[in-house]
């Protein structure tokens, strides 16, 4: 029984990471209808930036905040410089650009930081919190951090004028222009936020999976599965999807298929959702009018 509880709790912790990454994916999908294949590598790169800062002696939480700001800027730059020129290009061209971005970030990380695995510190103590047996401090801390992040984002989008403008720009760019919203900058902002969210996900998962350039590819797969399960154009769905996938991964891994095939679970989930219910739990079905 205690292992079961621990598996569920661990699933919630990783689920929070998947939820954050899935949210980043949905944010970009909602405003551009593009799937950001490079989301994982951006998060990985941001985590390396954090690692560099921490190694240079910067205190953890200060490095955390700096990384948020740096990755935000990176996201904005990527959108303005690399993505904008192909915004309206055919789908294949866009997908290729995203893959190119994935590859560049991966190789630059490999070049600068080498492929040797590095340890990434957790800001939370090693002892279990309050003597609880089924959860580690890092897991608890990770859940809290992701919850705070999601809450902040929700408040931003729901209650601030800028958040409202971003929602409007994602839904209806033409009408947004008619009320004076600079839609191009809203897209850049969306990318910046997505990159910042990704950096949090990276920093929370790195202590568990260790830092190396290929660390995010499996996690990205789970995030895709989560976003699809929840509905690729539903932020709430993505978050819920993240937790579902996290718990499912752990339970199936521990009791059903063993830890070695966990990625295949994500793959099967993705294919099943795409073939049976592409809109996911909360997304909208797109009907193409002939």
């Amino acid at each position, binding site marked *: 029984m205690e292992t079961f509880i621990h598996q569920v709790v661990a699933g919630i912790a990783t689920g929070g990471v998947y939820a954050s990454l899935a949210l980043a994916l949905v944010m970009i999908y909602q405003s551009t209808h593009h799937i950001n294949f490079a989301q994982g590598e951006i998060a990985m790169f941001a985590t390396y930036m954090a690692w560099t800062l921490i190694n240079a002696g910067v205190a953890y939480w200060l490095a955390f905040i700096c990384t948020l700001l740096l990755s935000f800027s990176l996201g904005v730059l990527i959108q303005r410089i690399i993505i904008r020129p192909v915004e309206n290009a055919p789908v294949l061209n866009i997908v290729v650009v995203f893959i190119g971005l994935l590859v560049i970030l991966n190789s630059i990380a490999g070049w600068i930081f080498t492929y040797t695995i590095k340890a990434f510190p957790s800001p939370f103590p090693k002892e279990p919190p309050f003597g609880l047996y089924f959860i580690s401090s890092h897991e608890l801390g990770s859940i809290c951090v992701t919850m705070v992040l999601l809450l902040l984002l929700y408040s931003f989008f729901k209650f601030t004028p800028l958040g409202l403008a971003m929602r*409007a720009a994602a839904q209806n760019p033409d*009408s947004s*222009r*008619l009320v004076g*919203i600079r839609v191009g900058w809203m897209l850049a902002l969306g990318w910046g936020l997505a990159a910042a969210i990704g950096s949090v996900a990276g920093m929370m998962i790195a202590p568990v999976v260790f830092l190396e350039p290929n660390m995010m590819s499996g996690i990205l797969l789970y995030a895709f599965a989560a976003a699809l399960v929840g509905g690729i154009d539903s932020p709430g769905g993505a978050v819920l999807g993240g937790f579902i996938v996290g718990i499912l991964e752990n339970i199936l891994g521990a009791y059903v298929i063993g830890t070695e095939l966990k990625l295949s679970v994500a793959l099967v989930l993705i294919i099943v959702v795409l073939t049976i219910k592409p809109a996911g739990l909360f997304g909208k079905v797109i009907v193409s009018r002939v």
Partner: protein
Amino acid sequence: MSRMLLEVKDLFAGYAATEVLHGLSMKIEEGSITTLLGANGAGKTTTLRALCKMIKVRGQILFDGQAIEGKATEDIVRLGVAHVPDGRGTFGSLSTEENLQLGSYTRKDKHEVALDQEKMYSYFPRLKERRNQQAGTLSGGEQQMLAIARALMLRPRLLLLDEPSFGLAPLIVREIFDIMQTINQNDKVTILLVEQNAAMALDLAKYAYLLETGKLVLSGLSEDLKQDQAVRRSYLGH
């Protein structure tokens, strides 16, 4: 002669390979209501889109003496031009109130914005009832009112309206036209109204332009156009 808020000289505009407007010239007097009439496909919607730079244009557009043909839509909006597009362009998944808030997005005067929001609710009580409802679930007439209210939240100097009567019951259309009269007289908003319903438009507007396949064929006081034989036959049904 009153001053001209908007002057258009030799405007050419279109989509991709097709040019729809072939050298349009018109003047909109400040404080007036002007109507742009024409059959389907004449280019009325294209004209309004061109004025907001939603499409590429060639020619000159002067708003309050300032050339705007090189500016982006978002900047033209900031000069005080509000456009209620055909199809209404409401943000369907956002609430009624959020739609209104977006209308005042570019304004910095919070206090005045709050006053204007109350004013909109007084013009359109039905919107107040549905302030937290999702805009996409409003009826056609209510969405049209919302679109106009959103445009007015800008406190525009020029209001462009694209077929506000489209698909609406006559009673609702009457309501909307009355509101337009009110905002023109009380709030001094200059209006350029594109309409298929020529009779109502000519009653409301002081000036009228008639567009046929991208060219202006008639212009002048509505009074005069109402008497014109060709107009009466083709657009007024008598």
